[in-house]
C-alpha cells in the first residue's frame, strides 16, 4: 500500500515536470523518471517481464533516441515553451474534465470479484504470445520492419 503511494507520487510529480519543463533535455530526463516508476509499478502488478522490457526499450532505447533528437533539432531562438494563456486554460479545463469523467466512471463501476495474480509468470506470457496470438505477433514484426524502413527513408537527406 505504501509502495503504491510512493510510486504514484513519484510518477505524477515527474509527469507534471515533463509537461511543464521549459528545457527539453530536462523534460526527457523527467520522462525517464516516469518510465522507471512505471517499471516498479509493473513489478507491483506481478508483470516482471513488462518491467524488464519497459527498462530495456523505454529508458534504454526511447530516452536515448529522444535525447539525440532534442539535440539534433536544437534551436536557440525558441524561447516560447508553451502556448498562449487562452490555450493553457483550455488545456487545463479539458484535461481535468477528462480526468473527472474517467474517475467518475471508475468509481461507479462495480468491479467483478476476481482473484488477483499472486506470482509473476513470464513463461505464461510468452506462451500466450507464441501460441494463441502468433499471427498478431508476426504482424507486429512486419510492422516494426516497415517502421524501421520508414524512419530511415524519412530521416534521409533529400540531396544525398
Amino acid at each position: 500500500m505504501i509502495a503504491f503511494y510512493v510510486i504514484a507520487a513519484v510518477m505524477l510529480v515527474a509527469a507534471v515536470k515533463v509537461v511543464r519543463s521549459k528545457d527539453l533535455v530536462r523534460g526527457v530526463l523527467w520522462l525517464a523518471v516516469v518510465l522507471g516508476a512505471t517499471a516498479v509499478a509493473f513489478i507491483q502488478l506481478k508483470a516482471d517481464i513488462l518491467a524488464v522490457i519497459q527498462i530495456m526499450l523505454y529508458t534504454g532505447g526511447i530516452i536515448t533516441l529522444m535525447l539525440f533528437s532534442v539535440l539534433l533539432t536544437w534551436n536557440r531562438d525558441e524561447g516560447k515553451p508553451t502556448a498562449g494563456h487562452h490555450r493553457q486554460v483550455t488545456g487545463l479545463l479539458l484535461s481535468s474534465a477528462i480526468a473527472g469523467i474517467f474517475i467518475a466512471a471508475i468509481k461507479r463501476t462495480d468491479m467483478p470479484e476476481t482473484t488477483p495474480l499472486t506470482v509473476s509468470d513470464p513463461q505464461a506470457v510468452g506462451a500466450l504470445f507464441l501460441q494463441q496470438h502468433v499471427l498478431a505477433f508476426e504482424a507486429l514484426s512486419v510492422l516494426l520492419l516497415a517502421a524501421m524502413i520508414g524512419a530511415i527513408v524519412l530521416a534521409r537527406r533529400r540531396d544525398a
Partner: protein
Amino acid sequence: MADLEMWLILSAVLFSVGLYGVIVRLNAIAILLSIELMVNAVNINLAAFGWARGDYTGQMIALFAIALTVAEVAVGLAILIQLSRTHKSIELDVATELM
C-alpha cells in the same frame, strides 16, 4: 496491496496530465513526450486489469502496445528531424502547408 480502482485512478490522472501536455505545448518533441505519458498510462491500465483478473492476457496486450509505441516514436522522430531541416524549427505552428 493497492486494489484495482486505485491503479485505474492513477492511470487516469497520468493520462490527463499527458493530454494537458499535448494541448498546451508547441514544441513537437514536447508533444511526443506527452504522448509517451498517455501511452504509459494505458500500459499501466492493461497491466492492472491483467493483474486483477488473474490472467496474463493484459500483460501480453501491454507488450504489443509497447512495441507499437516504439515504432511510432521512431517514425515520429524521423519526421521531426526532417521538419527541423526544412523549417529550421520544430514548433508545430510553423508547419502549416496542409492547412
